Each structure stands twice: as structure tokens, then as C-alpha cells.
């Protein structure tokens, strides 16, 4: 067990450790993109970007920038040997059809039964935008969330029921935070890893029942 809570970089590293060799993976915009920094060159993992590419490489700089080659965050990227391009309907069919192994997304809230809220604050003056969030959340074989456990004002983001508008129902399988890794199970939430936090401390932060699974070894 780590003695300290994880930094954002360390959360990304922790997520990367759980992605199996050879997986087809989509990393969401923002924090999840950091996961790519920790996927080893020998991992054989293929990155998908929903705007129409498999085999996406690192961010492009200088002379490598090509306006026709961007990721879903509209940032210039590079292509790796073996890359493929396809149109939007094929890209989302690939996702929705269950061919993508893993997607990693950020979240405003996740509920104890795996509902995800990450697209809309629901505030009356907010301009809604959804992009590919709903497609990703439902389409990948497993949806992992990486997020801070609490909001800036201290409210827990793992909740009994989402108060923000949901992105997908029952779609999240694991949640990676600075204090713990949570696994959404059929009958509740299990805690798989703790970082600089005791089970008692975690229970005082999280308002849903937690099962201590830290001593169980996951295959």
C-alpha cells in the first residue's frame, strides 16, 4: 500500500497498470490522456480516437504537426506503424459494437451502481455539449473512471445517486482516485486499493457502503 495519496500522474500510472497487454483503448479528453504516458512501448496497446483512427501516437510538435491529423481533443497527434483511418460512423460502430476493450473517462459523479455523470452540470445557463461521452461510456467493453474523490469544496463524487444529469446508466466498472481504487460490483462498491488513507477514513468521506477488498488479490 502507498503511504501517501496519489498525484494525478500517479493515478494515471495506476490506471495504465490495469490495462491488459494488446488491448484496444480509448482515452478521454483531459486527465485520462495522461494514461498514455504510462503505457509501455512493449504493451502492444492500440489507442483509438473516436474522430476516426486506430494506432494513434504521441502528441505532434513542430514539423510533425499536420492539421489533418488530430485527436478527439482536437490536438495534433502522430500516427504509429499499423495505424488505420475510418469515418465517424465506422468509428462509433467499432465502439458501440463492443470491439473496444477499455475506455477511460473523467467524471463529475459516479453512483454506487455505476451510473456516470460527466457531460452536463445541469445549471440553467450552461450550454450543453455531449460529444462522444455517451457513446464511449456505453460502447466500450469496460469503462474506467479516473477522478478526484472529492470536489474542490469537499463533496464526495462517488455517490448513492447522481445529482448531475447522467451520461450512461450502470456503465462504470472501476473508479481510480487519489485515495482508493473502487470496483463497482453487482451488489455494491468494493475498495481494492488504498493510498495514504485508512478504510475508516475512506468511509467517513464516501457516503455509500463500502466492502473492504484490499486483501483480495485480483487476477
Amino acid at each position: 500500500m502507498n503511504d501517501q495519496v496519489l498525484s494525478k500522474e500517479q493515478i494515471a500510472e495506476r490506471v495504465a497498470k490495469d490495462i491488459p497487454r494488446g488491448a484496444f483503448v480509448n482515452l478521454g479528453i483531459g486527465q485520462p490522456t495522461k494514461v498514455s504516458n504510462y503505457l509501455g512501448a512493449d504493451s502492444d496497446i492500440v489507442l483509438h480516437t473516436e474522430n476516426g483512427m486506430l494506432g494513434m501516437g504521441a502528441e505532434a510538435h513542430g514539423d510533425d504537426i499536420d492539421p489533418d491529423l488530430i485527436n478527439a481533443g482536437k490536438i495534433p497527434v502522430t500516427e504509429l506503424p499499423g495505424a488505420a483511418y475510418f469515418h465517424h460512423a465506422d468509428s462509433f460502430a467499432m465502439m458501440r459494437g463492443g470491439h473496444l476493450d477499455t475506455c477511460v473517462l473523467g467524471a463529475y459523479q459516479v453512483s454506487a451502481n455505476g451510473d456516470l455523470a460527466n457531460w452536463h452540470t445541469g445549471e440553467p445557463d450552461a450550454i450543453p455539449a455531449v460529444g462522444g461521452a455517451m457513446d464511449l461510456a456505453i460502447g466500450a467493453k469496460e469503462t474506467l473512471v479516473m477522478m478526484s474523490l472529492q470536489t474542490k469544496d469537499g463533496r464526495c463524487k462517488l455517490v448513492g445517486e447522481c445529482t448531475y444529469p447522467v451520461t450512461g446508466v450502470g456503465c462504470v466498472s472501476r473508479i481510480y482516485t487519489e485515495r482508493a481504487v473502487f470496483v463497482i460490483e453487482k451488489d455494491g462498491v468494493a475498495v481494492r486499493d488504498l493510498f495514504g488513507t485508512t478504510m475508516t477514513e475512506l468511509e467517513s468521506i464516501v457516503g455509500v457502503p463500502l466492502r473492504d477488498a484490499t486483501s483480495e488479490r485480483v487476477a
Partner: protein
Amino acid sequence: MTARVVTDPDAAVADIGSGATVLIGGFGVAGQPVELIEALVRNGAEALTVASNNAGNGDEGLAALVGQKRVRRIVCSFPRQSDSWCFDERYRAGDIELDLVPQGNLAERIRAGGAGIGGFFTPVGYGTQLAEGKETRIIDGVGHVLEEPIKADFALIKADTADEAGNLTFRKTARNFGPIMATAAHHTIVQVREVVPIGAMDPEVVVTPGIHVSTIVPTEATQR
């Protein structure tokens, strides 16, 4: 049948009249038919329905159309961006109707429109605000939402190379919505980097067959 090759973007979009439904390709700058959109801004058509992934950036192109209150309704997955102030203002003022659609549902609705499919059930969006009022069905134990096809009068897209038969190739992630939008419109107008004679394009590399293309506009500015 050969496609019409038109060098003047204004002439290419001259038939787009008020009240038309127009699909506009591109994801960010990649695949955005900038010269055709600018020509549509000059064309003066009003009360348009536009389907496009975004709702315009900055003050030009689609943003200008929206800012000038010429778009009555927009079908779109991601209108909100740091520089989408034209849309934001019109939306808050209630001047524009927004049909917000998850990105993959948007793509599939356009594909369905072009493929003669009368709609489809998708799990994406089930149980969310974006499915409110839509027909649902449980299929294989999973909730699905009925999504309807999108068809249009015109599509404005950007490709890399066209031959005079209208066959198109695309380049990297600029392909995005182009091939599906080309199928879903009565008139597809394509701006391309280069037009080659019939016979000069390997049929094996064609992404969009010329049957879907009405007008080709070679534009200097699409050259990299």
C-alpha cells in the same frame, strides 16, 4: 455520369436557398470545408437547418452563419467550446433550436439517412436527458433508444482528391463525417485539394464513390 467541377465556391453553393437543410463536415479544422462555408455565408440563405459536429468557432464560417441568425435549428454533438460565443449568445437568447445528439448517434443517424434506414435502436443515451420523449425498447436485456435518420438537401464536405467521376479520397482524420454526409444529401458539394481525370484514380482507394457527389470545387486553400 461525371460530377460538375466548379472553380468558384459561390457558384457551387448558389442553389442553397432559405429553409434548406445542410450537413457540414469537419471535426475541428480537420475536414472542414472552409471555402464552401464562407461561400454559404455570402450566399445569404436564411432559416437553415444545419447538422455539424460543432456549432462554429470564433467569428467566421459556421459561427458567422449562427451569429447572423441564419441558422434556425442546429443538430450537433458539441456546441460548447471556449470560442463558441456566437452560438452561446444565440442559444441563450432563444434564437436557435438545438438538437443535441451524442456524437456516434449523430454519425449513425446520418449514415441511416444515406442508407435508407428508417431509424435504429441504440443503447447510447438510454436513461439520460437526451433520450427524453424518445421511444425505447429493451433488446437482449439492454435499454435502447429509437433514433431517427437525418437527411439533407445539401452536404458541404472536404476531401483530398476527386476524379472527374466524383470519386473521392480523404486524408487522415479529415475523413471524419465526409463519407457519411455525402450519402445523406440530395446534393453533395465537395471541396478538394486536387481534381484528377477519370482513370487516374485507383478504384481500390476510392472511399466515397462518385454516385454520392454532385459538385466538386478545387480550392487552392485546401492545399497543405
